[in-house]
Structures are given as C-alpha cells and as structure tokens.
C-alpha cells in the first residue's frame, strides 16, 4: 500500500467512526437512560428502524430534514412508550417484550416504508471537520453529521442530570431499588415508563442520523443489529453516559473498517470485516463480564445482570 492509500484508509476509519458511530451514540444513550431506570429495552433495535423510516418519510413529506428528525424521534418515543406500558403489566418480562417490539417495529417500518425506497429526502447538513487538510479524500471523509454535537451535549447533559438533578436521582433510584422508590411515595412504573419513552426519543435521533445523513437513504437493511450492539455497548460503558461517547466511537470505527478497505480497493473479506463490530462486542463482553457476579456500576434492579 502507498502512503496515500494509508491516509485514505485512516481517514476512512476515523471519519467512519464519527459517521457510523452517531447512531451507536444515540441508541446507547437511550438504552443507558432506560437501563438506569431498571429496565432493559431490547426493542431499541425496532425503535431505531422505525424512527429511521419515520424521519426519512417526514423529511421527504415536509421538505425539512430537521422536522424529519423530530418526527423520527417522536415515532421512536411512541414505540418505546408501548414497551414501557407493556412491561408495567404484572408478569411481563422486559426482555421478551423487547424482542416482540423489535419484530413489531421493523415490521411496521418495512410496511410503511415501502413507498420510501425510491425517493430522495433532504439531508442533514454536514460539519466539515476536515477543512484544515489539503487532501480531498480527508476532506470528504471528515464530513460530520450535524447531530453528533447534539449527541455529545446530550451525553454531558445526561451525566450531569444523573449526578445532580432531582429527576436524575429519581430515575437512578427506580433503577437501584424499587422498594426505596415506593417507600418515598414515587411510582416506580411511572418513572420507568417516562425513562423508557425518553430513551426511545433519544434512540430515535440515531435512526434519523441513519437515513438523513449516513447512509442517507431508506432501505430494509438500514440497521443490522446496531440497536442490540448498543445494549452491549452500555454494559461496556458501565452505564455512564460519558463513557458511551468513547464506546460509540470505538464501535463506529470498527464498523467503518469494511467500507474503508473497500474504498481503497481491498475487496477481499468485505463481509468478514463487516462482522468486526459484532466480534468486538463479544470480545468486550467476555472481558468485562464475570460469571456469577454483577457487572460494576449496573443498576440493581436490572434483570439482564442479575
């Protein structure tokens, strides 16, 4: 490989980390908020696909990408609200409900998204981070989604809210001890439904960044398990919104290896390189989980870690 190719590869991976990592960031923040309240929402995969479809459709119909983002996030919040309500019934398992909503959300998105496969929707503006460079490859690789700064602000906001605000503490209390919450006179189910819905809204922003920035179109293979990787990513980030940023960038970079290699003409093993994020997730889970013990920093009521 020549030096130019190396630069292109590195730019592809770094730029890809920011581009591919954006949906990871939003979904993991949404999942982090949900899990902090003591529930696990595997349905965020469905939320991601549904909101990707809804934001693309919304942007196409209204002609405004930002309205599309809002519509997508709202759709995500509604599906998550359904998860929250269902799980509040007695004897309804949150993991099983998540699987059901994963199927339901993707089914609904594929159904409603049929007429959206052809058209082009207005896209979100890009922030040119690569303008310092003379190299056009680097310039085009470092075009960053306008939602990414919002995601970083959101992560900081969540981190601050969990540590400092009343509502943040309430959510954490619902996640750590349902009995304590009840004893203080708060509704556990209400807090969890609110946190799950807000988590769905945030994850919906991730869906919007899929169809309105990168890859920038709607098709049925738009998400391949990003929503679920985010669940593992939250475990890796030990339920800290700040660590979610780093984890999302790492996974984005891993997901960008395949396309970056293809862009410089290495076609071999394209599908293998595309599995890197999944393998990386598994490796990280192997390294961070210990049998018979609860993961550090996990909310006490969480069924996945018990």
């Amino acid at each position, binding site marked *: 490989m020549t030096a130019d190719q190396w630069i292109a590869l590195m730019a592809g991976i770094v730029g890809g980390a920011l581009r591919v990592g954006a949906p990871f960031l939003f979904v993991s923040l949404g999942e982090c908020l949900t899990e902090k309240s003591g529930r696990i929402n595997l349905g965020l995969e469905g939320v991601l696909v549904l909101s990707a479809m809804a934001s693309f459709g919304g942007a196409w119909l209204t002609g405004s990408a930002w309205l599309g983002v809002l519509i997508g996030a709202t759709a995500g919040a509604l599906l998550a609200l359904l998860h929250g309500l269902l799980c509040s019934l007695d004897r309804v398992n949150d993991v099983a409900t998540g699987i059901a909503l994963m199927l339901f959300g993707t089914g*609904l998105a594929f159904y409603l998204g049929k007429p959206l496969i052809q058209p082009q929707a207005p896209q979100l503006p890009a922030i040119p981070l690569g303008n310092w460079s003379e190299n056009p490859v680097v310039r085009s690789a470092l075009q960053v989604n306008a939602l990414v700064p919002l995601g970083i602000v959101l992560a900081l906001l969540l981190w601050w809210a969990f540590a400092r605000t009343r509502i943040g503490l309430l959510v954490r209390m619902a996640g750590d001890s349902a009995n304590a919450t009840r004893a203080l006179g708060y509704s556990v189910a209400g807090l969890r439904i609110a946190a799950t819905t807000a988590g769905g809204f945030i994850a919906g922003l991730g869906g919007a960044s899929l169809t309105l920035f990168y890859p920038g179109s709607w098709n049925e293979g738009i998400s391949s398990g990003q929503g*679920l990787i985010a*669940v593992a990513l939250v475990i890796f980030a030990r339920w800290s919104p700040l660590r979610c940023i780093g984890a999302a960038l790492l996974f984005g970079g891993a997901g960008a290896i395949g396309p970056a290699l293809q862009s410089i003409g290495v076609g071999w093993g394209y599908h293998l390189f595309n599995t890197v994020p999944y393998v990386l997730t598994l490796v990280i889970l192997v390294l961070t989980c*210990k049998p018979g013990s609860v993961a550090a920093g996990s909310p006490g009521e969480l069924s996945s870690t018990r």
Partner: protein
Amino acid sequence: MRSALKEAALPAFAIAAALLLFGVFVWFAGASPLEVWLILFKGAFGDWFSWQNTLQRAAPLMLTALCVAIPARAGLVVIGGEGALVLGGLACAALPYVLPLPGNIIGSLALCIAGALAGALWIALAGWLRQYRGINETISSLLLAYVAIGLFKHLVEGALRDPASLNKPATRSLAEGLAIGGIGGSDVHWGLVIGIVACLASGLWLRATASGFAVRVVGGNPRTAQLVGLPAGRLILAACGLGGACAGVAGAVEVAAVHTNANASLIAGYGYAGILVSFIARHNPVAVIPVAILFGGFGAAGSLLQRRLGLPDASVLVLQGLAFVLILASEGLRMIDWKALLRSRDVPLPQVRKEPQLHDEPPVPEQANAREEPGLAHPPQAARPLIHESLHAVREAASLRRAPQ
C-alpha cells in the same frame, strides 16, 4: 385436557385480537379488512395448493422454534436461531465439497447431521458464554447470528462459490440423489416430518425423562438445581446444543429440499419468526407444531395479500409483531382473578385467624394476668406481646399489599 384447553385459550384470544387489530391496520391503508381476513385464510388453508405452501413454511418454523423453546426450558432466552439456521445450511452445502457422499438417503442424512452439528456448536457457544463467562445469552446469540451471516456471505461469495452462478452468488448445487424430495409427490418435503418428530421427541424428552426433568429444574429454579447437585452447566449446554441442532437441521433441509444450494435466499427470517412461534406456544415443544402451521400459513398468505390487494409483503411482519406484543400482554392478564374483579370492586382482606384476647385488646395488663391459671396451655407471658405484634404486622402487610400502589 381441560387444563390444556385453558392453557390454549389465552394465546388463541391473543391471535384473534392480533387479527382484529391487523384488520383495523389494513383498513387505514385502504383495504377492506373482511377481504384481508378472507385472503389470509384462503392463502393459508384454502385449498391443497395453499396447504402445501403452508406446510413447506411450517417445517423450518417448527425447528427454529425449538431453538428457542428448548433453551427457554433451561432458563435461557436464545434469539439467535437465524445464525444456526444459516450455518446449518452452509454446512450442508459445503459437505459435498470435502466428502464424496453416496447419492441416496445416507447422503441426505449426512447432510442433515452436518447442519445439526454446525447449528449445535453455534448455539452451544452462546450457552457456554452465558454459563462460564456470565454473558447475557440473548445479546450474545443475536450477535453470533450476525457473525454467522457475515461468515455465510463471505464463503458463499468467495471460497465456496459456484463459478456458474453469475448474478446471485451460490454454492454448487447438490447432486440429484442428495436432495430431499417431497412426500408422496407433493411439494411438502420430508422436512415437515423431521420437524414434527423433533417437536414430539423434545416434548417427550422434557416431560418424561430424568435429564429432561433436570433441565426444567435448572430453568425453573437454578438455586434448587444447585442444592440438588444437578450439573447445571452441562445441562444448559445440552439444551442449547439440541436447540441449535434443530435450527441447523432447518437450514440443511431448506438447502437440500428447497434451494438445492446455499444462497442469500436462505436468510429469510425463519429464525426470527421461530422466536415468535415459541413464545406463542409458551415454549411447549408439542404446542409448537400447530402454532408453526398457523404462522407458516400467514407467511404463505403474505404473497397472496401482495398480489390481490397490493399490500406490501411486510404486512405479514406487522401481523406477527402484533401477535407477539399481544401474547406477552395476555401473559400479564393471565393471573388476574376476573370473577373476583366482577363480583365487587373492593376485594376483601384475607382473614387473619382471630384469637380475641390476643387480637383486639391492648397487651394483657397486670391484673388480667392474675385471673389466669399459670402454666397451662397458654404461651408464656413474655411471648404474648410478641405474637400480638407479629399478627399485627401480618395484617398490616396484607392491607398494604391490597392498597393501590
């Protein structure tokens, strides 16, 4: 029999409610619900042609549902059946590359065994990660499914590709004698028999054998299993391996009976639909058979819906999703005592057995003690207030539980 009917009532209601909601849903899309229901029935069970289509789809569904049901009995939620199915199909298609097979039933059997082994290893890996590494098996099995699909595409488009397959990458087609044929000349292949036998056998295994019972103990109460000294790790691995083997056979049968080679059409979502089938069958392997036929029927009717009414092919996915959501919601309504709810709005408190002199009076005063004969059947004096206290606590707890939270 009565209890079996009772068990089936709620899932039946949930499916009926899902069909009803689906009718409302297509009504919004401008189609007539009545027509949709009619076509769903016709496309699934209307004539012999639809029945063949239905049963052809039911066969892999039964096997992938077992991939969820058997581990579920051991307490694991495995949702990566798609990965085991894909690898099973790949192993089946790849075996003739490395081993000359006789072109008869023995060869076909070898193909199925190859598929079973591949699937078993894949799901057992998820079980191993859970048991010995503490990794949530729901997440890991799904991640493994994506890895399996990547591996499948890599090999089918690379090392195993038949150079003659130009537009759609595929492996070399199986030899004529290796393919699994139809039953009695119909389109329904022997995979259906394999599926039904697998369901019945695993049902029997879980119900009637010691090891099956042990698996259910491990799933029902891990602590009891530990106390009794059951080898939980090995049992979980066995349950995952068996489940994975079933899904692997599903993939092998799909290749050997339907596609004749491994190509991307194998990744058709049977693994995910199997999750739904298993949950609706409440993880009962025998109940999987009718549920798989029902959902195979909905799948078969999907293309008819598309042709006749112009509904997108994903409409069946919506129906499946609705059914899944409702079946889980019905689980939450199962324990409600409807009769008591109808009788009166405020349910009476559970009665605490009354012992008047302990219950309603304040702790026994000194003078009262003098009236009693000491040393008889009464509890010692010091214990009395204690009993009083504990009764009081029970009563309070009971009223607390009834209070709206």
